[in-house]
């Protein structure tokens, strides 16, 4: 019996020791993966060039500095434009080595994608094909080849910030008559389409300069509700009122419960964001159905209003 316990204890000791060795094993140098290097302009001797390096760490280690080799003759005072995977720091060029020094080094997990983008380089005047050797902690790697030559064509594709807005209606009139039921309660749909490449989408703002008003200011329609926060069902639409309901397809959605529930809300003179989208879209459609309802208490007059739909992209 005693021999059995000794045997078990020995086995446990061996396992524990092996585990401790595995846990405490020092990080071994390993090759960086997905190593990349690019420059904004590959012409020789040109100034104000942006160099961008990217790689993926192979081991978990505290990285205090990352070094990159650049072609002999490279000059300039680099400034940091963008970094991810690491934290803030500064960059310096000495000879053929660029060093990005992390201000507060921390442990970087293996498999972390790192990007370092530096501005302010002047390309070497010697044409040729170059690679950049990268060292991050104990991990090293070599980048793809970059050719610096007069024959190189710098390709710079610039996509503008763009927003398109389509509407099928720029004005409408309603022929209303309280003596005919079909003419005393009318709707008019305005169909809108929005397309934008804005990263954070867009908002559609709706406002009016006034509720439909006749020749005398006292003669006007009332907003069916004070704003988008409250709405009325179709059957509860009251006489002498003007309002709209909203339906959307695509990424954009109504910004209040009444707007997403098909209820009628009133136009606001100060304007309200009624549709919001969180990303780019090739074409969201919105139908704003305007409605006016009268009875014999509505004075005969020419009522007019100006409604403005504004699309504002979000970047």
């Amino acid at each position: 019996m005693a021999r059995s316990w000794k045997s078990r204890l020995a086995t446990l000791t061996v396992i524990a020791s092996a585990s401790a060795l595995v846990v405490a094993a020092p990080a071994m140098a390993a090759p960086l993966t997905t190593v990349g290097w690019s420059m904004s302009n590959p012409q020789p001797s040109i100034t104000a060039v942006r160099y961008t390096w990217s790689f993926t760490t192979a081991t978990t280690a505290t990285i205090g500095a990352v070094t990159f080799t650049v072609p002999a003759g490279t000059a300039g005072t680099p400034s940091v434009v963008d970094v991810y995977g690491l934290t803030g720091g500064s960059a310096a060029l000495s000879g053929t080595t660029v060093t990005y020094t992390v201000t507060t080094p921390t442990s970087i997990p293996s498999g972390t994608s790192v990007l370092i983008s530096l501005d302010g380089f002047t390309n070497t005047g010697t044409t040729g094909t170059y690679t950049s050797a990268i060292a991050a902690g104990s991990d090293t790697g070599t980048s793809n080849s970059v050719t610096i030559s007069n024959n190189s064509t710098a390709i710079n594709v610039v996509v503008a910030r763009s927003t398109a807005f389509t509407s099928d209606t720029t004005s409408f009139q309603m022929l209303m008559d309280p003596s005919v039921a079909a003419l005393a309660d009318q709707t008019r749909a305005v169909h809108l389409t929005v397309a934008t490449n804005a990263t954070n989408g867009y908002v559609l703002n709706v406002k009016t300069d006034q509720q439909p008003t006749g020749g005398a200011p006292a003669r006007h329609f009332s907003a069916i509700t004070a704003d988008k926060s409250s709405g009325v069902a179709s059957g509860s639409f009251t006489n002498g009122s003007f309002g709209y309901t909203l339906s959307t397809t695509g990424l954009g959605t109504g910004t209040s419960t009444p707007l997403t529930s098909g209820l009628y809300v009133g136009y606001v003179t100060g304007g309200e964001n009624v549709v919001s989208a969180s990303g780019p879209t090739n074409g969201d459609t919105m139908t704003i159905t305007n409605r006016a309802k009268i009875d014999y208490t509505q004075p005969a007059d020419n009522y007019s209003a100006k409604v403005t739909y504004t699309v504002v992209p979000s970047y």
Partner: protein
Amino acid sequence: MLKRAVALAAAVAVAAGPTAPAGAAPVPHPTTTGSADFSVSTSAEPVSPGTDGIVHTQLTVANNGTHPLTVKLRSVKVEPQDNGQSVLTDDADPTWTPGVTVNPSLQLAAHTYRSVPVTIKVPPSLLPDVYLLGFVAEAQPVDPDGAVRIYHRIGALVTLQLAGARQRQLKIIFTPNRFLTIASTFDGGFTVANVGDASALARSQVRLGDRLIRTSDSMALIPTGTSRYAEFHYRVHGFFLWARPQAQVNYGNGTATLQTITGHGDRLLVIPWYTLVLLGLIAATLTAYWIWLRRRRAARREAARHRPGRHRPTAAAADQTKTAWAA
């Protein structure tokens, strides 16, 4: 009364096609002269002034419709909001509008576009910063006499960067999370607020467990007084996650050095269902083993009791012996 009604009917005349009685399904209208189909584009990159202190950029306005369109352009004030959204006011911007020169009205034939030069004179008193300038392109109604005139506007934003050192001040506010989450994933978020006097271009990432998670694909502009919400998603790779998320926000101060601020969220424990199932199986196995051990010991004791020479006589047996002996 009838005369009054007829007067109302005559006053509100139909100009843009028939209307539908309430309750009828809205019918899409074909494109008519009463439509607007246009777009506005601006520079993707921030613009900067030349040595003369003047910015040269352009707005590209396109009429994508099938009839001519009049588009009016003007500079307006921008009110930056959270998460990159902006509100364009109707008012001119007192800082920028006086120095903006742009063609105020364009006549665009069908399916044509025009690149409209815009010059912006930068006020010399402005400090280095990233500024948002707003422009409104407004399509004019084809029938300006309609009872209800609809104006369609596209807001265009131009980002103007004045280079130079400027101290930025950002703050990280973590969204509180539950300590214990029973799931194989964890979704969290935090807000980066600009509490300084200058706009900041920032990029954020989160350190959680053994991962560094990027929360955005590019640097985001955070104007002063606004904030951006960043979300992160973590999938547990082991049996559990016991960690405290750390947000890191990198941003520039207009110098060669990139700054970083960090903020910590609440400590969290994420246990996937498979871990709980595994623990349950282990507990069941150990319990079964324990029961088996107890039964085996009990059986051994019982067997030992009945083994010859290894048990003491019971009191009854002793009495019987005594009785026999006495007899």
